[in-house]
């Protein structure tokens, strides 16, 4: 270097000659500092994406340099997230590019003790062989005398982490293969939401969108830990608070949500119906309901059949219960003079027990279809109904819904609320006051819930109770109002809409049952409503069949309706597990789900897998569901021996969201497209790739087959274009099929264009419009700052890009806004149309004074004051005469495992719940039965901000793992003192199923409650851990039981009784011994807890 230059590079020289004599600033700057350039600025391109973790659906910018992703951060243009990301979203770079990910296919041969590598093509062909072999061996043309065209030998689980397009291909391919046991996280997460919201309002999705929270005057967060589980969405609560809104958090624990709330009300887990019922009673008995809203927009005025008997009359049961089959018949629940569900009568009617013993695990379940997830079919349409219900708009008729409701909830007094929930009267009344004061024409309150409500044996009814309350308060369809169901995974709303669920076809069309619905016509007759938008079901079904079977689907062959396999009962994921344990289900696809940790009774999950012939796991890393045969808990206890497990295991590394294109539907029904940033490395492939090529190879293998069972596969439209070096299917082509096209292949723009004559094809009618004009509407990204608060030009929401559902209700019956402050959509008489900020959820030109002609059908039968257009009567249902299987109105029942008797009724538990007695699935005694004192505490399970679900996306990620490095339990100081638990030490928690250990966190955030005259201690357990990964711990679901909500088949993991003791749990066989000793102490038998 030239000496002068060298001298100049010496800071001392610069100190002496420049403006920084002290050498602390400019003079000291180094060469590197001077050349520093942020890698965001140095990137070659920025790819628009969506956070792969939760359903808030935060926008992400993916910065790419060469073929490497160098940074992932929030997209400031997103109206939902405004550029922000929670810790998980912020860890996306590490998730997708970190060393935690696997890039090689692995194979474990039967009885093998280790993995070996396999090349991708060989592995895929081996899977094809397994699928075809098992399918052949387990094929059922008929079952119980009915044609079923299916295999029960194969099942698939997972979908909520996947794109809509991937879910679509799973459902399409597997259905064509005759696989009916197709399920995803939606079952274990929010299935009860679909039942609860769907039967009340006509659609099963959240009724509003996150940004609208800012307009709320009071936000009741109950059954959700909003700030921790949807942190970026929570900014809208902060926003509302800044505008003066009151925020209430009702939760067993004081959480990070409570910390930001104005009021935290601790509650006993599992008692929310009692709490909400108390508020309903308060509203009704003080006349605080929004009268005009209730009269016109709900079924309050409708008269109920004389035959109906309430829980008041039958001490906790509604009329129509059959204790032998453990089912309700809906007949007596009907409206007077109306056959509310002639169709559902047939739809849900008991067949002549075709299942014979198939459900030996489901006590008393004779396989009735009604218990088979039918409630979920209201995800986008209310119950069918025929005839004109009688109404009394004075609400005085003793059998009008309003009066029935009033009587039903009269016993839910503040005193009872206190006794049942442990919520002091003053706190309860304060909640009542805040809600009532912040509802009415000028003000709105919003309810926010998530899986604190869904995951109970009464989950659907908890949500129903919230629906009833929000309707009484007149908060539906209005800004700052509604019910915000905060869904789970990035793709879970989509995996419900384009369902990888056994009981549904895309758009909440039910899967056909074997016993009836022999042909398309009877299928449609059974389910289509006569009135409302669901009356067009035939167009939805035929268009779906055309999308799947294209040219092969003709009017002559019922559009290939018989290509659909048939259900004969419940084939939910929990039924499948028991089928696996019994050896009936032999092949299992796990595509982005980790049931060995995430599903209730984790041991049962693993025992099921240990009995498979083959298992395919597609994930980023080796989750517990991939390695249980090697190092699972049963290997340690000696219950299983690796060398004796015959399951063949294939591990396929999955591509991350940055490595593929596709859409996620967020918690508010909004489809957002994420673009591919780079190609996946090694053997990692998108699930779209896997499914497409799996299907392609299967079709290749079957080509020329004359077997009737192979027809559906061979007729399938499966000609997706591929691109790039990996032959990646073009996801937009799949989206275009989902959207649908007309006979000329022109993309459709709305579902009303669908036809029943086979001239249109549409893969999911509620998504029709997402590819309108051949443009990917989900990829629209007009920056939020350039739009109004609705931001309608950001992505695309179903239905028809509406953001607030039922928004016709934001106007008075006459079409004018209830108030200036709360206006949203109104009738513009001059223009002769509905107008406003949001897309009206109503026929655009139907005037408020429109009244249907007598005998009108379909949409014409809805009047100008019927805002709930998916309902057969256009009204929201306070009382559900049909469609929900465990009662027309929510009633409080104790959780399956509860240390308390039911203080409200003699009926202890939900009589219709599904129990699965099995030696590895034991239940606790009744709350007042001997032995119940062995499990005196209530455990609730939940999430932490820092981890994600069963941990696959956080426990392998160092930045997230260090934040919460181990499983812990949260206990109150009093419980800690009583039990000798030391902060930072260990505790063992025991239930009738199993025992786990956890570090102890002693905290005042756990409040002992006074319940039924004694102090109840609750134990908090975040459920993210398992033995694999960086951050480890026992899986909390070792403790939980398989016991299900009857309508939704969701498990009860939010409340169960347990014991806690200091110290670590025993290892090896002694663990099994410990659990057995507890069972003996409590006198538990296979009958315990299975009583009606």
């Amino acid at each position, binding site marked *: 270097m030239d000496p002068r230059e060298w001298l100049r590079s*010496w*800071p*001392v020289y610069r*100190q002496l000659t420049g403006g920084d004599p*002290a*050498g*602390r600033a400019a*003079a*000291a700057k180094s060469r590197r500092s001077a050349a520093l350039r942020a890698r965001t600025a140095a990137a070659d391109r920025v790819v628009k994406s969506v956070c792969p973790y939760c359903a808030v659906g935060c926008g992400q910018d993916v910065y790419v340099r060469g073929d490497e992703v160098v940074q992932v951060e929030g997209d400031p243009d997103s109206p939902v997230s405004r550029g922000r990301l929670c810790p998980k979203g912020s860890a996306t770079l590490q998730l997708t590019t970190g060393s935690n990910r696997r890039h090689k296919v692995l194979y474990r041969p039967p009885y093998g003790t280790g993995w070996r590598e396999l090349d991708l093509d060989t592995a895929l062909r081996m899977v094809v062989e397994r699928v075809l072999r098992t399918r052949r061996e387990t094929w059922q043309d008929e079952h119980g005398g009915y044609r079923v065209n299916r295999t029960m030998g194969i099942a698939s689980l997972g979908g909520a982490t996947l794109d809509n397009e991937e879910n679509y291909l799973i459902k399409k391919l597997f259905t064509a293969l005759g696989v009916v046991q197709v399920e995803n996280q939606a079952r274990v997460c929010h299935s009860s939401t679909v039942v609860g919201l769907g039967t009340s309002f006509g659609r099963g999705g959240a009724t509003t969108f996150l940004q609208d929270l800012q307009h709320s005057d009071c936000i009741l967060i109950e059954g959700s830990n909003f700030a921790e589980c949807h942190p970026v969405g929570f900014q809208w609560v902060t926003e509302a608070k800044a505008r003066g809104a009151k925020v209430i958090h009702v939760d067993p624990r004081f959480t990070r949500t409570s910390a930001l709330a104005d009021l935290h009300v601790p509650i006993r887990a599992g008692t929310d119906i009692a709490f909400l019922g108390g508020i309903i009673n308060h509203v009704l008995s003080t006349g605080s309901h929004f009268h005009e809203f209730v009269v016109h927009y709900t079924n309050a005025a409708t008269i109920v059949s004389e035959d109906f008997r309430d829980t008041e009359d039958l001490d906790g049961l509604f009329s129509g219960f059959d204790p032998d089959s453990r089912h309700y018949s809906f007949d007596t629940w009907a409206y007077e003079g109306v056959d509310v569900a002639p169709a559902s009568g047939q739809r849900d009617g008991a067949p002549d027990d075709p299942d014979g013993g198939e459900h030996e695990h489901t006590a008393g379940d004779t396989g009735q279809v009604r218990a088979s997830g039918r409630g979920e079919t209201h995800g986008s349409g209310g119950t069918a109904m025929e005839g004109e219900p009688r109404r009394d708009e004075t609400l005085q008729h003793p059998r009008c819904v309003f009066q029935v409701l009033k009587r039903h909830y009269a016993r839910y007094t503040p005193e009872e609320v206190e006794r049942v929930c442990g919520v002091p009267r003053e706190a309860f009344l304060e909640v009542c006051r805040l809600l009532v004061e912040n509802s009415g024409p000028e003000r709105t309150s919003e309810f926010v819930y998530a899986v604190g409500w869904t995951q109970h044996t009464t989950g659907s009814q908890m949500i129903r109770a919230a629906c009833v309350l929000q309707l009484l308060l007149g908060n539906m369809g209005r800004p700052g109002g509604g019910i915000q169901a905060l869904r789970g995974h990035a793709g879970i709303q989509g995996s419900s809409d384009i369902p990888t669920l056994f009981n549904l076809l895309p758009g909440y069309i039910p899967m056909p049952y074997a016993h009836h619905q022999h042909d398309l016509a009877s299928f449609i007759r059974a389910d289509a409503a006569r009135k409302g938008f669901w009356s067009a079901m035939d167009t939805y079904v035929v268009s779906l069949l055309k999308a799947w079977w294209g040219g092969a689907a003709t009017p002559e062959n019922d559009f290939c309706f018989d290509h659909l396999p048939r259900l004969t009962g419940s084939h939910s994921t929990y039924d499948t597990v028991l089928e696996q344990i019994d050896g009936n289900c032999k092949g299992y696809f796990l595509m982005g789900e980790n049931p060995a940790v995430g599903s209730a009774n984790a041991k049962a999950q693993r025992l099921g897998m240990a009995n498979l012939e083959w298992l395919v796991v597609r994930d980023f890393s080796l989750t517990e569901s991939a390695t249980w045969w090697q190092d699972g808990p049963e290997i340690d206890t000696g219950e299983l021996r690796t060398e004796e497990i015959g399951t063949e295991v294939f591990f396929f590394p999955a591509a991350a969201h940055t490595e593929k294109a596709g859409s996620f539907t967020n918690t508010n029904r909004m489809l957002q497209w994420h673009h591919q940033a780079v190609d996946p490395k090694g053997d990692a492939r998108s699930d779209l790739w896997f499914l497409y090529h799996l299907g392609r190879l299967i079709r290749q293998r079957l080509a020329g087959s004359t077997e009737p069972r192979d027809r559906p596969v061979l007729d399938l439209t499966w000609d997706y274009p591929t691109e790039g070096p990996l032959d990646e299917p073009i996801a937009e082509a799949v989206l275009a099929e989902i959207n649908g096209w007309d006979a000329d292949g022109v993309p459709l723009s709305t579902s009303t264009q669908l036809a029943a004559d086979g001239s249109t094809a549409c893969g999911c009618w509620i998504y029709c419009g997402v590819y309108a004009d051949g443009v990917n509407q989900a990829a629209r990204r007009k920056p939020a700052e350039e739009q109004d608060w609705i931001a309608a030009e950001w992505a695309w929401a179903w239905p028809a890009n509406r953001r607030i559902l039922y928004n016709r209700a934001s106007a008075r019956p006459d079409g004018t806004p209830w108030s200036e402050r709360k206006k949203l959509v109104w009738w513009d008489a001059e223009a002769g149309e509905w107008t406003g900020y949001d897309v009206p959820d109503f026929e655009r030109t139907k005037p408020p004074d429109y009244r249907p002609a007598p005998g009108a059908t379909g949409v014409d039968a809805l009047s100008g004051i019927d805002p709930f257009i998916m309902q057969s009567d256009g009204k929201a249902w306070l009382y559900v005469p049909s469609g929900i299987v465990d009662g027309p109105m929510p009633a409080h029942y104790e959780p399956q495992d509860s240390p308390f008797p039911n203080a409200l009724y003699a009926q202890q538990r939900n009589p219709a719940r599904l129990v699965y007695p099995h030696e590895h699935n034991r239940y606790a005694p009744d709350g007042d039965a001997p032995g119940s004192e062995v499990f005196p505490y209530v455990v609730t399970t939940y999430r932490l901000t820092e981890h994600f679900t069963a941990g696959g996306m956080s426990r392998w990620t160092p930045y997230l793992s260090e934040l919460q490095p181990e499983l812990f339990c949260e206990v109150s*100081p009093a419980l*800690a003192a009583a039990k000798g638990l*030391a*902060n*930072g030490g260990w505790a063992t928690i025991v239930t009738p199923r199993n025992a786990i250990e956890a570090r102890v966190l*002693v905290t005042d955030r756990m409040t002992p409650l006074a319940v039924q005259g004694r102090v109840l201690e609750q134990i908090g357990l975040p459920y993210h851990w398992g033995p694999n990964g960086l951050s480890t711990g026992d899986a909390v679901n070792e403790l939980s039981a398989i016991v299900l909500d009857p309508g939704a088949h969701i498990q009860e993991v939010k409340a169960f009784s347990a014991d806690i003791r200091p110290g670590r749990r025993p290892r090896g066989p002694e663990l099994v011994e410990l659990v057995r000793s507890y069972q003996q102490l409590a006198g538990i038998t296979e009958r315990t807890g299975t009583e009606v």
Partner: protein
Amino acid sequence: MAGRHSRRDTGFTSYYGRPVLKKPTWAARDIAGYLFLGGLAGASSVLAAGADLTGRTALAKGCKAGALAAISGSLFALVHDLGRPGRFLNMLRVVKPSSPMSVGSWILVAYGPQAGLAAVTALSGRFTRLGRVATVGAGLVGPAVAAYTAVLVADTAVPAWHEGHRELPFVFVGSAASAAGGLGMVVAPVEQAGPARRAALAGGVFELVATEVMERRMGPAAETLRTGRGGRLMKAASALTAAGGLLGATLGRRSRAAAVLGGLAALAGSACTRFGVFHAGVASAEDPKYVVGPQRERRAREGR
């Protein structure tokens, strides 16, 4: 309950008892050693210059050699303690009056070569004229070498160091004088070692008085100079320093053996002072009460 944050019952609140400050990452052997050796070198150079000028050749030679050894050792310790020893030259990248370590580095740049030259010429017997200049030069810079290390540690947020910032230089120079005296007693025959004995005694007294004053004026962090590891070392330091000085002033005037023993005691005492101060500092940084209490009091005093 373990691990929960302590509240006002203990007179102050902290975050789960965790330190407010980061304790020094310095290794005691390196940095306390550096403080001691720097002091020894600096004072020895002064002693050497005096001996040179007064014709005490043996004392001069021993002190020069000792100073060179000490400064080399201190430099080694300093570099050894660096997280990136290969980058030690970056110390000369800037001249920062605000940084005692920067100032110290430049002092060492001035001192080191002179001390080296002084020693090498004395030991080799060549270039004596140059040697004399270097000796005087080192002797003049020496006090700065001995004193700046006090500023080095005092110029931190560490309560036991910073709160003693007025007295610490005196403690350190006293300790340095005592150490240099000790060195002189060890290396020089008793007849030449008079100034060394006086240095050890007077330096020791100076140090002990300064330490006492410092502890009194310091605030609660003085506790760390009296208790724990720092306290034990400080106690040993006073004992050894006193013993060294007294031994030198008495038996050491006649007996070489006693002089050597006294000299070693003084050296050890000086080392103990530096290690004691070092550990007291670490202890005061680790316990939030030495940070929170005085600061709250100050705020209250000033009505804020």
